[in-house]
């Protein structure tokens, strides 16, 4: 069974990197990408073009997004009764204390800073996979 992951990330470079890293970690992962907050919400709420979108098993969310930024998306997800059960992992470049605090206040499931080095990045992705997809129990997809 495939695992649906929604990656909300505006940098194509980062998208590709993430994709590569996940492919190495777990080939069963199907990575969906939304490049901005609006698209992310449309996907999650199955609006318009995303009417048949799969429901993700978890969401990887960058904070610094154009238009609707990551914090807003997070807030929107966690205030939606239907969507809030999807684990939302913040994956962002910022290691600022304020961002970390805010994210947890908005009920992010966890916060990860994108490491600078490739190796480290690959390790982080791997640990996401290990933890969230192997250890953690996720609610059944509905």
């Amino acid at each position, binding site marked *: 069974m495939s695992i649906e992951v929604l990656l909300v990330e505006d*940098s194509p*470079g*980062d998208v590709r*990197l993430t994709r*590569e890293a996940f492919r190495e970690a777990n080939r069963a992962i199907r990575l969906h990408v939304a490049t901005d907050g609006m698209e992310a919400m449309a996907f999650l709420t199955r609006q318009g073009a995303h009417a048949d979108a799969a429901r993700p098993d978890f969401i990887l969310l960058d904070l*610094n997004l154009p238009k609707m930024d990551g914090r807003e998306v997070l807030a929107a997800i966690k205030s939606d009764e239907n969507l809030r059960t999807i684990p939302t992992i913040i994956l962002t*470049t*910022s290691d600022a*204390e304020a961002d970390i605090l805010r994210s947890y206040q908005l009920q992010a499931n966890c916060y990860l800073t*994108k490491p*600078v*080095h*490739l*190796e480290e*990045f690959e390790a982080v992705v791997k640990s996401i996979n290990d933890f969230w997809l192997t250890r953690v129990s996720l609610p059944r997809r509905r």
Partner: protein
Amino acid sequence: MPSRARAVAQPAGLRSDGNLAEPKLAEVATPEQLLQQQQRWRVLDMMLSSFADFAYAFDRDGRFLYANRPLLELWGLTLEEALGKNFFDLKYPDEIAARLQRQIQEVFATGERIADETAYTSPCGVAGYYEYIFSGVIGIGGTVELVAGATRDVTTRRAEREHLVQLEARYRGLLEAAPDAMVVVDTDGEIVLLNVQAENQFGYSRDELIGQPVKGIIPEGFAERLIADGTRTAAEALAQQIGTGIELIGRRRDQSEFPIEIMLSPLESAEGILVTAAIRDITVRKDAERHLAQMEGRYRGLLEAAPDGMVVVNGRGEIVLLNARAEKQFRYWRDELIGQKVKRIIPNGFAERLIADGTRTAAEALAQQIGTGIELTGKRKDGSEFPIEIMLSPLQSDEGVLVTAAIRDITARKEAENRLGQVEGRYRGLLEAAPDGMVVVNQAGEIFLLNAQAEKQFGYRRDELVGQKVTNIIPEGFAERLIADGTRTAAEALAQQIGMGIELNGLRRNGSTFPIEIMLSPLESAGETLVTAAIRDITVRKEAEANLVVKIEELNRSNEELEQFAYVASHDLQEPLRIMASYTQLLSKRYKGKLDSDADEFIAFAVDGVNRMQRLIQDLLTYSRVGKTGLELLGVPSDRALQQALLSLSGAVEESGALVTHGPLPEVVADEVQLVQLFQNLVGNAIKYQGAGVPHVHISAAKNGAPKWMFSVQDSGLGIESQYFERIFGMFQRLHKRDEYDGTGMGLAICKKIVERHGGTISVESEPGHGSTFHFDLAASEPRS
């Protein structure tokens, strides 16, 4: 005076039957009989002549049959010469002789006695007045045979009476003319005489009073004095009264009473000693006296009660009255001064004003002085002098215009004036010398004094400001502080201001304003609280302040901008850098060995460059973060921070085998995160710049003059040349080539920023080849109790 004929009692005759024995001339007498008759005649004659009075007899024709010796002596005749002559013959004045003759005839005719009086001048020239009685002597035939006469010399009595009458007339005249009521009282206390004034005074007519007891008009006091008791005569009783005015009460006809003063004097009269009483109605005087007494009483009361010494002086410059205060002032007893010249106590200046010179009256001289206080010198009994101020006012009295002088001892006032003058002088000196403008303001907010500085500051001349409201030069803020509102006194309002510099605005003469700082302090002066304001023109200061503020703002802004820039730059640079780094690494990883060796090398350089860039950016970010975030200053155990730092450096520590030791480390006031960073950088450096050998790092702390701790991070590394001591703390400063030692050159800059943000300083001690010690200080934390 008309002669009056009066019937009188028959005089006693020589014979018991009342008849005169007459010698019988017709019968011839014997010689013995003749001798007897002669003897009898002689005895008769002697007897008749022994009387002082004249005795004589007439016949029908008025011829003398007999005249006694006194009469003969009066005539200057002998009996023989007189016998047979009548009055005409005796050269009596015709009228008198005729009258006498007539009267003799009348007696012969009627047998009735006739008494009369007449004046007569004897041939010798003796003038006199005589009373005579002619009485008929009845003979045997039952008819008057001869007229006997007796004459008494009443010259003196008559003169007396005339005199008395004259006196009486004169007296009566005086009496009537007298201004006072005059009442003459006899020894029985009855009024014998009174004048018209008395009538008016008592409301009676004369006849209603004459013969009445004087008690009727003077109920008490008069009669008593008159009536001789058994031990004194009226004369003696009277003698006591002569000359003294006695105050009694008079009673009018209508029974109303009024006060009188009587003056008694004796009056000799035919009726005995009479008392003349001059009676003066003293109602007015009594009223005046009473009034005066009241006034005197009141005046005396006022006089005594007056706070000032009061001295009353008469026109001759003599003291007539003074009060107790004056006694004290001059240290005299009252009686020592009354009657003395006022010069005694006020040697100069007083008397001169009083004594009228030929061209002015005392009143005029006085008029000039009324109301003005004159400063003179008073002289005490012991000769010591003291300054006085006198105020004169006139006082009308029976004795003329008196001068009342209110005398005030102004010794204290003079001293105070002197002292004030001195203080003023001294103060004025200080005032003028003061570098600041000084303005003294009274409670009404008016400028009392100012100095030259203030003149310059405000562009006024002194006289333009003195007396003016201080609001003219300090429009707002000054007066408000002075003027007492209903709930505070000026003193209280002032008390708040003392010592504080207040910034206000000054207004120059030309209308321009300038900022001033004033410092207020109170000044007691002659019972008034004044406010001294030291005024400083702070234009320059204000400008400097403003400039400073502007500069600081600019600086802050630029700092902020800089920091913002640094933050944003490094934050936003992270992103592309990461991509670059990741892909070059990906490239390196995936295609290493799959491309040619050149490609490998190129990729390696790229990767390296990116890595460096990343580190640089990271450090920049850290640097900028040090300033950007707010410090959370708490009491931090510095050893805990060190441990944290070592944890982060564990890799480097392990790799180098470094030996990190530390002494007891205190609790300091710091932001923990930054303190960790600080230690991390310093210890990291110490390990990195070791050179050969194993790094030895020792961290210690010592008290650097409370309440700061001086930390030392000592290493056994390369050391630093002194010329670089400053530089190494700058941004991007590196002392080594890239292939020697890696680093961004930001580490120490970050340390410096952290330490400075904590209010401390960082420095280095070092010698090349002998390691370095970095020092920094932080505030000590208060020990937790």
